[in-house]
């Protein structure tokens, strides 16, 4: 596993992986990055939400990186735990959209995160780059209320249309039921 070494690497500020170096070299000058880290060996870019398309297009199209598969897309609600990531508080961000990308050809991964504020949980849809992001974005919208601009069919996917609110937000009670039929229990 070798995670111990990774931790040390972070402490020592050891040199970046190839992926990270390349991403930094190109995205750095573009001024879209907020933060980067390689905790536990997972290369992570934190970028401005409004620039997500630019970043993704680069990561997808770049010959050296070639992230051809969007592995996972989710959101995190940091309400009450903003201290987890140091960059959240200054931005007044509550949510973070998390993308995990993978390159089948090059066999490397990267995590891209875009912090969002509570007032404007909007981010551009990446379905134009990876068609597979379709349902993942719908899910994030369903459960977190993050709105993906430009998504072809942004509606609830796991829950039903009549459901009110977004249950994975931290301020939604775990047992707050909205049954379609039957008694509330």
């Amino acid at each position: 596993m070798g995670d111990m070494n990774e931790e040390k690497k972070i402490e020592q500020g050891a040199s970046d992986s190839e992926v990270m170096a390349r991403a930094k070299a190109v995205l750095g000058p573009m001024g879209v990055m907020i933060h980067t880290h390689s905790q536990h060996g997972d290369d992570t870019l934190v970028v401005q939400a409004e620039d997500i398309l630019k970043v993704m297009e680069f990561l997808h199209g770049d010959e050296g990186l070639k992230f051809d598969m969007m592995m996972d897309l989710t959101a995190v609600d940091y309400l009450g735990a903003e201290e987890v990531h140091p960059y959240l508080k200054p931005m007044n961000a509550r949510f973070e959209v998390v993308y995990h990308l993978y390159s089948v050809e090059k066999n490397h991964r990267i995590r891209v995160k875009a912090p969002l504020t509570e007032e404007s949980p909007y981010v551009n849809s990446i379905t134009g780059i990876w068609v597979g992001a379709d349902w993942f974005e719908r899910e994030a919208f369903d459960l977190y209320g993050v709105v993906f601009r430009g998504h072809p069919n942004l509606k609830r996917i796991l829950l039903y249309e009549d459901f009110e609110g977004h249950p994975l937000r931290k301020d939604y009670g775990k047992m707050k039921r909205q049954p379609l039929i039957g008694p509330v229990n």
Partner: protein
Amino acid sequence: MGVDELAQNEKPTEEVTPGEVAALSDSVIITQLSKLVSWGRQYSFFLYPFITACCGMEFMSVAGPRYDIDRFGAALPRFSPRQADLLMVVGTISHKQAPILVKIYNQMAEPKWVFAYGSCTVSGGMYNNYATVQGIDTLVPVDVYVPGCPPRPEMVLDGLIMLQEKVAREPEINMTRGVSPLGEADDRKIIA
């Protein structure tokens, strides 16, 4: 549609009034006949497997060669609710799924029984949150509860035997359950 409003839709579906049944049930022929009918029903369950979740994997085993639910005459799965006698609710019922369960129950032809298979159907099991129904008895009447997550096949067979005993004791030939108080009445009203 509100719960109260739905409850008002419920109408008695029995064609014979309770008084008539009581009068008839004294007669020797009727009691012997009802015994025979109960015997038939007991050993001839056509299942409607309402399989949603993990318990379905165990249900395959129950139907499989080692446990073989067919021994009890309950092997034949009918996926049309009209032809089924026993609604096997196998797996978690979410609030999104609940209306479908109620509908299937209402579509089943009388007489019908319901088998709650697994903890989730009994009480919600380990899922107590915004998405899950806390026991299917809040939706439809249940005859047998078999807890377990998932229950072992032996438990299911035991539950089935208990249901058979229950059916054997059933005094009425004309056993009807009617529609679930929660769902819309099915089209049966039109012809009844």
